């Protein structure tokens, strides 16, 4: 193990004067099928360890796999969405290696006959489009999960024993492999991140997976190499695993670029190896070296028959693909009349669908955006959840917007209403009704509050009369406070001005 602390790093901008990066991504997506890839076991996330297993996914002697048709279909749909060629004949292969989390002593995967090949995905970074070529999309099975007990790090080193949960073993896993992507230069980290983001959107739009990186249903390995500017050959690459968030994808690329630049600057040689990404430090450390890596002895899986998807069926799948995220963004951007940058914000916040539904429920696009990207985004962030997980529906947001626009409530009241909606107290109109949160007119109560404020602050009145009109702001605040925000601030200001300045 190389100490991560010892890695010298070159300044990012400086390294770009001497080196060009080439990136490549291998992304694993756990499909959201109801059953596993080769048996009928359930795939529910978070179940008690080893409760979703059977002789097949435990690799018991004599057991045999049967391929999950829904997983094959989902893989082909992902391939079609990425513009891939769908193989008319494809086979599973055995990838042989020993590890306790692979029950059969081999992983059933695909080797030289994958389901989908030769696609691409265009991603946009700062208004510029980068084409990422897709080498292949293939189908395989997930491994079990090792739990190392007793060590400080949760890693195998230092642990006193290990446990294995085979619930995950055999869950269908789609691997999407890019071709090397040169030419991204300084933008390489952002391009990598944008690629994974876009891929996630596509898989989500297809309904093929819940693609939750924090639960491991989308996992990323990042390949990076550096070569001297203008060099004809690419450098030696490293493969960084355990990159489990979009932000980490970006950080991992940046870190590896800076680390490799230092190695090369020192006259060293980048070792072709697997590296692990550490979320806490944003650094990578050396794993096993590929140069001493296993020979996987791939060969066609004799327990499964070859896949020969019917051409007509593939065409029907192609025809039934949903609108893909890029097309949808372009359409909505035009419909809503917003800039590409605003659209990117919406997409990155995971707010696109929510805004779209809110607009469909009657809100103006601008209002819908304002709430989802503003207050709601802040609340989601505070709670550490996705926007879509908040306990408020687009219909409720649209209703809230309507109440603001017709003057029933103001923005401040709307936030209070929102709190109560999120607390499960009902729809916005009902909350306004039940809590009496509507804006106060020029009622006796408000007149009393305004007069009390004037009476209670003779010094402020004196200042205002002496010409410092803006000092009235403090009194507006006081009135808003005594009315618990229900007053309309411009009205209060006007009432104060009338009484103090006599205008």
């Amino acid at each position: 193990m190389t100490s991560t602390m010892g890695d010298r790093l070159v300044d990012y901008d400086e390294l770009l004067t001497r080196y060009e990066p080439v990136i490549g991504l291998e992304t694993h997506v756990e499909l959201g099928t109801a059953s596993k890839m080769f048996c009928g076991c359930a795939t529910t996330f978070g179940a008690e360890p080893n409760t979703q297993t059977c002789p097949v996914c435990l690799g018991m002697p004599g057991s045999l796999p049967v391929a999950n048709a829904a997983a094959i279909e989902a893989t082909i749909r992902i391939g079609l969405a990425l513009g891939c060629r769908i193989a008319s004949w494809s086979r599973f292969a055995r990838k042989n290696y020993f590890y306790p989390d692979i029950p059969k002593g081999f992983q059933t995967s695909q080797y030289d006959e994958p389901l989908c090949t030769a696609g691409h995905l265009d991603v946009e970074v700062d208004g510029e489009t980068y084409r990422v070529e897709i080498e292949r999309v293939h189908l395989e099975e997930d491994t079990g999960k090792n739990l190392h007990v007793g060590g400080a790090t949760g890693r195998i080193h230092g642990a006193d024993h290990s446990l294995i949960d085979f619930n995950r073993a055999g869950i269908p896993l789609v691997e999407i492999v890019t071709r090397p992507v040169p030419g991204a230069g300084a933008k390489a980290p952002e391009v990598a991140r944008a690629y994974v983001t876009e891929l996630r959107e596509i898989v989500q739009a297809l309904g093929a997976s819940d693609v939750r990186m924090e639960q491991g249903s989308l996992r990323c390995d990042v390949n990076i190499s550096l070569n001297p500017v203008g060099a004809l050959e690419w450098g030696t690459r490293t493969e960084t695993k355990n990159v489990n968030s979009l932000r980490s994808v970006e950080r991992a690329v940046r870190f590896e670029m800076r680390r490799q630049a230092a190695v090369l600057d020192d006259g060293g040689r980048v070792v072709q190896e697997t590296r692990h990404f550490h979320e806490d430090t944003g650094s990578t450390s050396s794993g096993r070296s590929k140069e001493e890596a296993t020979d996987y002895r791939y060969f066609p899986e004799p327990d499964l028959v070859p896949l020969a998807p019917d051409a007509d069926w593939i065409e029907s799948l192609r025809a039934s693909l949903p609108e893909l995220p890029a097309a949808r963004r372009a359409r909505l951007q035009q419909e809503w009349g917003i800039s590409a940058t605003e659209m990117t914000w919406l997409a990155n916040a995971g707010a696109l669908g929510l805004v779209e539904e809110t607009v469909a429920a009657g809100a103006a696009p601008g209002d819908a955006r304002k709430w989802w990207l503003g207050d709601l985004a802040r609340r989601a962030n505070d709670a550490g959840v996705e926007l879509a997980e908040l306990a408020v529906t687009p219909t409720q947001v649209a209703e809230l917007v309507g109440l603001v626009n017709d003057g029933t409530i103001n923005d401040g009241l709307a936030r209070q209403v929102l709190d109560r909606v999120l607390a499960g107290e009902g729809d916005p109109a009902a909350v306004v009704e039940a809590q009496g949160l509507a804006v106060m007119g020029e009622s006796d109560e408000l007149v009393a509050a305004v007069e009390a404020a004037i009476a209670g602050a003779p010094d402020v009145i004196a200042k205002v009369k002496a010409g410092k009109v803006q000092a009235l702001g403090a009194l507006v605040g006081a009135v808003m406070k005594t009315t618990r925000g229900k007053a309309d601030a411009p009205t209060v200001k006007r009432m104060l001005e009338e009484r103090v300045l006599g205008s």
Partner: protein
Amino acid sequence: MTSTRNDLTSADVAELSRLLSTGEVSAVEVTRAHLDRITAEDGRLGAYLHVETDAALAAAAAVDEARAAGDELGPLAGVPVALKDLVVTEGVPTTSGSKILEGWLPPYSATIATRLAEAGTVLLGKTNMDEFAMGSSTENSAYQVTRNPWDTDRIPGGSSGGSSAAVAGDLAPWSIGTDTGGSIRQPAAVTGLVGHKPTYGSVSRYGLIAFSSSLDQAGPMARTVLDAALMHEVIGGHDPRDSTSIDSPLTGLADAARAGAAGDLRGVRIGVVRELGGEGHTDGYEPGVLARTREAIEVLAGLGAEVTEVSCPSFDLALPAYYLIAPSEASSNLARYEGVRFGLRVGDDGSHDLDEVMALTREAGFGPEVKRRIILGTYALSSGYYEAYYGQAQKVRTLITRDFTAAFADVDVLVSPTTPTVAFPIGARVEDPIAMYAADLCTLPASLAGLPAISVPSGLSDGLPVGLQVMAPALADDRCYRVAAALEAAQDAARGHRLLDELPGRGAAA
């Protein structure tokens, strides 16, 4: 040492079925007769690794009760059966002849075990075998030597040698064997039994401990062709748990056997494979084996079959191709035995790391022949050698299939000796793997092409049984049964009794 004749343990299944369904004997009587004989004789033969005494009697009693209650029972209800020890049986020890699975109690049952149970058959026990089915003599069992009832100094064939010895030795009326390169047909041949390897994909492999996935097939080992066909009809047919299972019904096998026994083979075209014991290809074949083969073919011709010689030149390459493909698949199939989830675990005392525990477990748990084949297969699949070995072997497989296709354009079945020699003495070939492998010379082509092939007795040579192999196109298993039954009926009639009745100690009585 020799046993007395016992009608219940020497009867064929068709007869037992009749006795049971007419109520002349009870299932408990039949089962007890077999268990008693196992107790008396298996110390000598070593056919069984595990006997299910209590469970068998309970299952037999249940059949008798059901019959007494007037339940509609299948024709095989109450007939005992023995299973090769690689057929996974829930709650019943299943070792595949290996120490690495000693003590394992499976949590599920193989499809064929379930189908036999559903037919009302009574499981007597699990039979000895070469470890992971790798061998032709059963001497590679990690547990015990099994002896040939015809001559206990000789091997019972392999790898299904426990299954052959049990049936020939009257310790079971019939049994399940499995055949990867000849492991049903060769032991059947050297013990005077009928053994059929079905078309690949026609009998479920779910729950058969895998040796070589693209070759393994389970099939019947029985005293008569009809019995074999009856068992085949029980265990065969589509199984959704096996992706390589063929979705087409398998019927008419027993009818084909009955039709063949009627003795009319007019219109049947038989091809004699030159490369398997024919002119210029007799090296390694015993004269007695070749003589019985010639005589059997003459009998078939006498029944009206049209006999011609055909050439299948690629068959000469079957042995090397097989010994690349089967070990390659085995090296992968046997990777799961590493001591993590079941079976043996060695070295887990805190002084060894994970890789060492896996290595120590496999070192202690696998026997020398299994290790030899794992090493062979691992090498053949290695990057840089894959094309030269595994890839080439697959091409040979294609050539062999083409030879069959060409031959079957002109003939209905192909025949050859089942194995080049009669049963050899125990220990004779253990030091010479190549000589051992040669026992499968004639059976390998049909295995590599996935075709059905049966071995039926053709007579004795020096007092030991010889088998004739009948091969047919895919899914034409009925042809094997028809031709084999014709030979069996004609020879039984000519000699006035069954070949098995000449087994020393059994007494030649029809």
